[in-house]
């Protein structure tokens, strides 16, 4: 176990320069954005003098290098600055909105995996049959439709026509109070508080946007599972296992599936990152108070502190994600971490 924990520590150490690079690049990028925040916030009627005054208040008149020093020293104290649009500190904005996005993405991925992985395994065990073809058609349809379209379609069918879904307005219907803040994930917080009514309400709100995202992510996961299972099933060791008389169940899940997991985990990581990006549209359609819509709004008005905070948060998230994937690799495959 020792070399493996050393590998994990090593991977964490590798993340440090990545984060430092992200700090520099996010800073430079936001400064390079077209538009002048000072002019924007001074309003259309402002004159040169008031713009200059605002610029001075924001510290934007200082040389770039000095601004960077201020930024880094603020950052080291955990201060991400104040959003010019919401007037709140960026940190508290992110803390409120990031869990919303994560809850949505994770729920969508869980749903997607629960459908796509068995579907992929099923297709791999019966290649060329109608099960295989049906699986292909299903996932292709899912990925072919843009998420905003699927979202609107689902709202139209389940909210407007059938009336079974709640109104697509955010994370919780106004009749409920949001659960006490522990993790920021409403489902978890409500469960912790034992408030099952709120839990049900949050779940109802979550179902449609999560389904929208899940439909979109079915394809890569199902196709990769199928391909990985096919190649695992044609390996020599599967023949050994069959020749030893092991049951189909054991051969399929104990031997083939664990070997097929590696590429599936890799795909999951990639899907997770692009889902966080694809979130923006779904959040818009369902009025989901997530980080994606926050970033888009901030970008439009050159709210540089918020954009910086967003980029930094995403970068940290991806670094953490990659770390988790690497650890998952090491847990699945004993060959990793020793070579």
């Amino acid at each position, binding site marked *: 176990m020792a070399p493996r924990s050393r590998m994990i520590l090593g991977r964490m150490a590798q993340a440090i320069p990545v984060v430092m690079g992200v700090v520099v690049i996010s800073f430079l990028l936001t400064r390079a954005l077209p538009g002048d925040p000072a002019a924007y916030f001074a309003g259309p009627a402002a004159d040169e003098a008031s713009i200059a005054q605002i610029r001075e208040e924001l510290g934007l008149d200082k040389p770039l290098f000095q601004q960077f020093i201020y930024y880094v020293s603020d950052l080291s104290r955990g201060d991400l600055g104040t959003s010019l649009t919401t007037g709140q500190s960026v940190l508290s904005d992110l803390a409120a909105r990031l869990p919303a996005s994560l809850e949505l993405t994770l729920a969508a991925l869980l749903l997607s995996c629960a459908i796509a992985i068995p579907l992929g395994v099923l297709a791999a065990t019966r*290649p060329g049959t109608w099960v295989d073809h049906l699986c292909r058609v299903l996932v292709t349809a899912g990925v072919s439709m843009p998420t905003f379209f699927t979202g609107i379609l689902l709202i139209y069918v389940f909210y407007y026509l059938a009336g079974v879904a709640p109104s697509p307005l955010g994370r919780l219907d106004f009749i409920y109070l949001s659960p006490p803040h522990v993790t920021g994930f409403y489902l978890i917080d409500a469960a912790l508080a034992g408030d099952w009514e709120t839990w049900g309400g949050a779940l109802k709100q979550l179902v449609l946007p999560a389904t929208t995202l899940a439909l979109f992510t079915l394809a890569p996961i199902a196709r990769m599972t199928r391909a990985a299972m096919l190649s695992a099933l044609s390996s020599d060791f599967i023949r*050994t296992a069959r020749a030893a*008389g092991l049951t189909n169940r054991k051969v399929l899940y104990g031997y083939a599936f*664990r070997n097929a997991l590696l590429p599936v985990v890799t795909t999951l990581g990639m899907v997770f990152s692009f889902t966080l990006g694809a979130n923006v549209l779904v959040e818009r359609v369902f009025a989901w108070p997530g980080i994606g819509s926050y970033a888009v709004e901030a970008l439009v008005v050159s709210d540089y502190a918020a954009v910086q905070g967003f980029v930094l948060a995403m970068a940290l998230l991806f670094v953490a994600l990659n770390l988790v994937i690497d650890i998952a690799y090491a847990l*699945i495959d004993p060959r990793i971490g020793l070579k």
Partner: protein
Amino acid sequence: MLSIKDLAVTFKTRKGEVDAVRGISLDVGKGETLGIVGESGSGKSVTSYALMRILDAGGEIRAGDVTFGGIDLRAASERDMRDIRGREVSMIFQNPRAALNPIRRVGHQIKDVLIRHAQATRQNAKQKAIAALEAVRVNDAAARYDAYPFELSGGMCQRVVIAIALACNPQLLIADEPTTGLDITTQKAVMDLVGDLAAARGMSMILITHDLGLASQYADRIVVMKDGRIVEDGTPETLFTDPQHPYTQKLVNATPRIGASIRSLLPAEIRTAEPVHKVHDRPLLDVRDLVKTYPGKSGPVHAVKGVSFQIKAGQSLGLVGESGSGKSTTSEMIVRLQDPTSGHILFDGQDIAATPAARFMRHPVRRDIQMVFQDATDSLNPRDTAASAIAEPMSRIAGLSGAKRRDRVAELAELVGLPQPLLSRFPHQLSGGQKARVGIARAIALEPKLLILDEPTAALDVSIQAIVLNLLVDLRARMGMSYLFVSHDLNVVRLLCDEVLVMKEGEIVDQGPTADVMGAPKHPYTRALIDAAPQPPRPVAA
């Protein structure tokens, strides 16, 4: 105990149905070892998969009866078959490392089988799995129980595969090329182990192999298969001394052995006089104190520990050793794909070790040293035709182009016996022997003075090997090339080489004229290697 009657197996492929086995009948008695010998595509493995009913998708038993101990295996339900597999009939496979689940501890893989067949309970499974490992003579079995396949050597992996197969005391063991890819001394150890265990347990065995020598040494009776049919069967002695079928005669002739000459490997009707190659006194290659050390996790790895030898102009030197002996590293340093840690490589008096491998491409001597690789398939670019593969070195190094290059490619194809129409084909459209010819034509395109042959026939069937070896002998005489022939097959080296070097753990342990080293080995390791090589009974008249 096992009886197969008129078994026919077909495979559905995209090009239609292919008959892999066309009506074969054979019997295996209790305690008997039956050898099934044949070249690739003869249907020998398919026969065994069919009787285990583990044919790949698309394969189907078309006709015939398979009875094992009174049970009709063709009619048995899949459920019954699963009980039979591993408990009554077991299999071991070639390429043992791939035959084991790479991410499961070997002990657990043995345990899976024991529990499946109710030979152990969860409580005593570990203990019984360790006992199974001890039965196949794995040292320190309790520690090996927790090992993963990648932590074990190839021979050790094959022992684990055997332990899985024998864990439930089956009555019949099917060994499908069990030693392909293993070193020759490991091959002997594994085969002796399997033979001893079979004898001790009164177990029957089917030994499937392409190596007639191996089959004759370990089997009581041999059947020879060709194109899905049995062409001959008999005891090893009768097959070798008095083969009846022309195909058996051809196989027996083509098997390299003591007392054979290179031409005697070929069928009698195409034999010509063996050409004489001239060996000059002038050394072409002079290797002095060559050392290669790799940085390793637990200290430096000494792959080659200061070897010195010479190859004279026109001479063929055999370099023999097992995996890890440093023979491949040595040949790669000479062809300048790797940089030596220290030492000199004098080629025609010029020290080529001084030029770094990365810059050797532009060295004037580059064209004089060429290499033929072990795997003819993997060493050809799958997207290049045979003609462009052969033309590659000419355009890269000699700067030949246009009609001149085309003529030269045609000329080379003629020289290596590759029919002209095949030149426009891609590697996957060529047979193993044809690919080997392309590899040789590419290597001799620039008329090198030294050709390094790295196990050039290891992946070929014996009859193709015989043809390729004879081609190499002809080319040597015609072009005056020197060969460095790297091989683990002593019988082949004996036929082809003037002198031989035996390497072990990075050092040369034995060297000298081939007849001396092979006839009266001085070093115990050389003797062990020679003893381990299977020797078929000598035919009365070749």
